[in-house]
């Protein structure tokens, strides 16, 4: 029994630390590739590690007007939420550590929590820029959740019609039974549309250009994070890094959960290694297309433009995807 708990703690710690490291590595890759696309050398891959270490060494200022307990609590909650996200996501060939029943909804909430924590922190800072940022974050949250939720629910629903016994509100079930294997051409088109919608949602979830409106440096001086420094800022920094991985892993789990190992008739530890490597590459591909390229290739939108984008075209696309999935069942 104790052995079981010990192992669980071990696994948990591995996922947490691994997630944080991975997040920072991807952030390094992100900055490097973005720099290269801008014809610059860019920072070294390890730069995010330097940043975090430096931030931890800095003074942690709590502004005079801030509500200290909320101000300091927000970054912790933010990091905790994204980290616990990792427990529910299938990583590589491994099933998620936790989860099962209903974790899909949990994941939706856990994705929203960091944004909310940031908002609370921003409001608690009582800085006008932070407050404007928090307001903008809220509007963003309310816009991009539409397509996200529609996509997730449609996929789960379609699977439930195929496997009526399965607990489809669970990521591991979704990942274990990729829909592509079951649906007809209509459904496949629907799935592609949903994937597209989620690719657009990703940069918004991650507050990256063109949706970094809550943090817009030139408009509101870093917005939500304007008053943060030192350790608190480091926690947000880490949370952002981990969230990037988590979001990408979510897309991978939903749309491309396939492993490579069984296709190559591998087994044993080698198979695990191959699958993990393949998983990391898939995550990288998602990050590359929906984070790096997008943030490098677009201007920041205004908040109402972004909201309109999500409310109309992106939600529209995901609704069409849903309808196609429904038709696919009927057909």
């Amino acid at each position, binding site marked *: 029994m104790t052995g079981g708990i010990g192992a669980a703690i071990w696994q948990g710690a591995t996922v947490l630390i691994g997630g944080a490291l991975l997040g920072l590595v991807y952030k390094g890759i992100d*900055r490097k590739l973005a720099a290269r696309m*801008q014809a*610059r050398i860019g920072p070294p891959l390890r730069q995010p590690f330097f940043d975090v270490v430096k931030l931890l060494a800095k003074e942690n*200022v709590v502004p005079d007007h801030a509500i200290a307990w909320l101000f300091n609590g927000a970054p912790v909650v933010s990091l905790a939420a994204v980290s616990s996200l990792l427990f529910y996501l299938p990583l590589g060939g491994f099933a998620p550590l936790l989860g099962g029943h209903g974790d899909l909804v949990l994941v939706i909430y856990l994705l929203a929590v960091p944004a909310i924590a940031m908002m609370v922190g921003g409001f608690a800072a009582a800085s006008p820029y932070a407050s404007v940022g928090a307001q903008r974050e809220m509007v963003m949250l309310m816009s991009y959740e539409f397509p996200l939720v529609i996509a997730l629910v449609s996929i789960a629903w379609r699977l439930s019609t195929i496997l009526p016994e399965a607990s489809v509100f669970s990521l591991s079930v979704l990942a274990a039974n990729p829909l592509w294997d079951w649906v007809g051409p209509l459904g496949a088109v629907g799935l592609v549309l949903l994937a597209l919608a989620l690719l657009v949602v990703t940069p918004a979830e991650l507050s990256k250009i063109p949706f970094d409106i809550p943090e817009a440096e030139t408009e509101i001086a*870093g917005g939500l994070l304007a008053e943060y420094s030192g350790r608190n800022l480091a926690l947000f920094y880490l949370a952002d890094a981990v969230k990037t991985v988590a979001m990408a892993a979510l897309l991978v789990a939903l749309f491309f959960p396939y492993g490579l190992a069984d296709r190559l008739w591998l087994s044993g530890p080698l198979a695990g290694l191959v699958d993990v490597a393949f998983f990391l590459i898939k995550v990288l591909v998602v990050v590359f297309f929906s984070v790096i390229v997008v943030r490098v290739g677009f201007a920041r939108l205004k908040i109402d433009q972004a909201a309109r984008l999500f409310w109309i075209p992106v939600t529209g696309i995901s609704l069409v995807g849903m309808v196609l999935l429904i038709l696919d069942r009927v057909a």
Partner: protein
Amino acid sequence: MRRLPRSFKRALWVYHVATGSCNGCDIEIVAALTPRYDAERFGIMLTGTPRHADVLLVTGPVTRPMRERLIRIYDQTPDPKAVVVVGGCGSTGGVFYDSYNVRGPVDAVVPVAVYVPGCPCRPEAILDGVVKAAVELEKLERSEVSA
């Protein structure tokens, strides 16, 4: 008392304060961030708020209204921090030496770690200045800093 971590100098975030400069140096600071010089390869990042900054890049001879602002920004910057003055006019007053509205140079207002003379400084001179600041920080790495 604590030690400055070794990678501190490899992740310097800078905040730019123009205190009455002529724009010459400010533009060269921006140039230092762009592809030809790319300050980001040293981990240097321009931040939007002094709260995130480790280094203040100050340009200009400090006009009277900017004096108090500069002090406030300096106070807002969390420790440990360093001020790098970019340009001859910020370092000494330069051509703006006998005006009724100038209260500089910068070191008459806040403590300065490194001066970068030049009018304006070439982008690489600015990078050189930041590297010199990094040398100073490295010296601190070996001793202890009061937090």
